[in-house]
């Protein structure tokens, strides 16, 4: 494999990691707020809190990693996206900031009582952020960022009137709720919390239908937006079929209330197939038609240094991630809430 492909694969993988952990986080924030609003907060709120508290910081890093890596491997991407995305990018930063800070304020700052304003901010940003971030996927298909003699510009009209933009936003919203509910169902089951489990199982089943409908919608909108990309997708159609099979399996297991761990692995595979299938068929373009992975690649010394740093980093990172998962996800005592009160 060439450096270019290794580089983009690393970045795509970070974005996939972000997709998973952030979805769980964003969706959980929304469910948490929703449960406070409907008055049965204590049924699922505690479970959500127990999972999120130790990991909330980690989520952000995946995103930063992607951005920093993109700048490093493809400096032209920084130029095009950076110039065009000033406004949407800044709004996303503000939303992320509000969300991160108020989570900490609510969790660590006040003793036990939930502040409804904080919860509302947390729930609302949980849906707004994925909507905002997902528009970059639509932008990368081309036609929205243009370059002319006065520089690089984002065509707001093109962005907002584009059906594909909305298809991607809808897909992002429903998948966030779906992924999150599927994960929480697994987590609640591990915790042996029947009440919470039944509630989140309902959410999971409720959002599974819209997820698959939105996926199909987005799939066919690509055809109109960027026919080349669509043809590439058809060439690796098996990946999308595999994604659908994983989806069906995951929902079936939740329906049966059995093997929730396997079910969540299937959810991860479902999105992995769709994500890598989408990414692979998007190649060689990072931004159609201005940036492709071969012309905009960084110099080879830096590529080598970055990949080396990446491998070295993973050697430290993976054991640490395993440790945090063992302590807070696979530790039955902690999950049930017997241990791990904050200091």
């Amino acid at each position, binding site marked *: 494999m060439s450096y270019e492909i290794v580089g983009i694969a690393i970045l795509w993988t970070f974005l996939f990691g972000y997709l998973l952990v952030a979805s769980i986080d964003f969706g959980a924030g929304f469910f948490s707020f929703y449960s406070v609003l409907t008055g049965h907060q204590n049924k699922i709120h505690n479970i959500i809190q127990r999972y999120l508290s*130790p990991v909330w910081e980690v989520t952000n890093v995946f995103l930063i990693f992607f951005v920093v890596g993109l700048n490093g491997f493809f400096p032209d991407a920084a130029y095009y996206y950076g110039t065009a995305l000033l406004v949407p990018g800044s709004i996303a930063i503000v939303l992320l900031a509000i969300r991160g800070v108020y989570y900490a304020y609510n969790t660590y700052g006040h003793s036990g009582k939930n502040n409804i304003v904080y919860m509302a901010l947390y729930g609302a940003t949980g849906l707004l952020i994925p909507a905002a971030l997902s528009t970059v996927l639509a932008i990368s298909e081309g036609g929205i960022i243009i370059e002319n003699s006065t520089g690089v510009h984002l065509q707001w009209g093109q962005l907002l009137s584009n059906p594909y933009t909305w298809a991607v936003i809808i897909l992002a919203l429903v998948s966030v709720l779906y992924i999150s509910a599927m994960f929480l169902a697994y987590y609640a089951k591990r915790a042996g919390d029947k009440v919470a489990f039944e509630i989140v199982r309902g959410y999971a089943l409720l959002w599974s239908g819209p997820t698959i409908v939105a996926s199909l919608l987005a799939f066919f909108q690509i055809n109109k937006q960027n026919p080349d990309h669509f043809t590439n997708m058809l060439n690796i159609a098996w990946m999308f079929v595999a994604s659908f099979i994983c989806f069906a399996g995951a929902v079936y297991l939740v329906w049966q209330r059995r093997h929730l761990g396997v079910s969540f692995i299937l959810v991860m595979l479902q999105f992995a197939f769709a994500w890598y299938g989408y990414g692979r068929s998007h190649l060689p373009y990072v931004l159609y038609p201005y940036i492709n992975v071969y012309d905009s690649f960084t110099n080879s010394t830096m590529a080598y240094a970055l990949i080396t740093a990446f491998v070295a980093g993973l050697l430290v990172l993976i054991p640490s991630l395993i440790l945090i998962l063992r302590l807070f996800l696979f530790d039955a005592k902690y999950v049930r809430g017997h241990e791990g009160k904050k200091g």
Partner: protein
Amino acid sequence: MSSLDPVLLSRILTGLTLFVHIIFASIGVGVPLMIALAEWRGLRTNDMHYTLLARRWARGFVITVAVGVVTGTSIGLQLSLLWPMFMRVAGQAIALPLFMETFAFFIEAIFLGIYLYTWDRFKKKYTHMLLLIPVALGSSASAIFITTVNSFMNQPQGFTLINGIMKDIHPIAAMLNPATPTKVSHVLASSYTLSAGVLAGIAAFSLLRGRDHVYYKKALKLTTVSALVFAISTVMIGDSSGKFLAKYQPEKLAAAEWHFKTMKEAPLVYGGILDENNEVKYAIEIPYALSILAGNRPDTEVKGLEEFPADLRPPLSIHYMFDLKVTTGVIILMIPVLYVLRRWLPGRKPYPKWLLLGIVLLGPLAMIAIELGWMFAEVGRQPWILRGYMKVSEAATTSTSVGWMLVLFILLYLILCFSCIRVLSKLFRNKEAEKELETLGLEGGIVH
């Protein structure tokens, strides 16, 4: 003209984000070390007071970390959003430290999460404290990596620039540029000083309010003595920064010292104002001091500002920042010295009130010093963004929306800072240390 405004506004917005971020980032670098110190002392002497100290600091620390994380995210993304031309060119050379910084932060984030939720969870007591090692290493390492990027912008090396494209790049050489050693060590030492100073201030504040539990006295001693050690090292490293400037960035030192003519036995200008003919008024001149600062000998030749073309000189206003920063630094050093000598000082024993007030001021003073230091370093390399290679005016975005984004971020940071202060003060007021000691059954402090 249309790209001139975005340049100025981008500078203001970047400056604003960094202005907020560096305070929280410095706390993020130093406080884990202080927590580790307290917890370690608590375990070693079997004195639960120190353990409680570590716990209470950790609780407040998370709140500041949250603000540090989100402002750090801001600056991380703003680098590309506001300075796309710079990133397009320099991204080729600085990607490695930026990437490594994120790794270091990742490790810190993971272990901080673990640390906060594993009090009393491990059989061996020291295990919990050991979790702080990756936290402290991670935060210091991110400071180191990101400072190498800033050093690179001050002292670029490790590439050849051909037609606006960097060729023949050596990432490690770019990181280990001549500015790196002094900058990195100065940033670390001043962050530790700030953190120890803030925590000392909290202890002194409680004592001032009439809480005379031995818990606060132990806290005061631990933090003030640490502040002293860190302040001494900060000042010593600051001195070598002066020598670095004289050798590598003489125009910055000359502008800071209003030193116009190249000469040996150069005097140091302290304070004063500059009139319209560039005549220095009301300043104190210390003979030979600038030569000694620059090269440790009175006959060291110090380059004057006249040797540099007018359009490449930094603004002369950095003199005020430099003098104020050095003055603040000396005050920060003197206060803990007085604490050590407190037995022989006038005022009520054991702690004269004015001394406690001084210690309360340590934190704010250190914040001022750090802000001034950064402003001096950054404004002092104007007009360059990449000294000698790329000017700030060529690097900024061409977008016309920067003004609105500036307004948006001013609002965001105001809200973040005010709510942070509110949450922190509420946190400690709701749960007084005396009450916590009682619930833990630790009136005497030592567990037998």
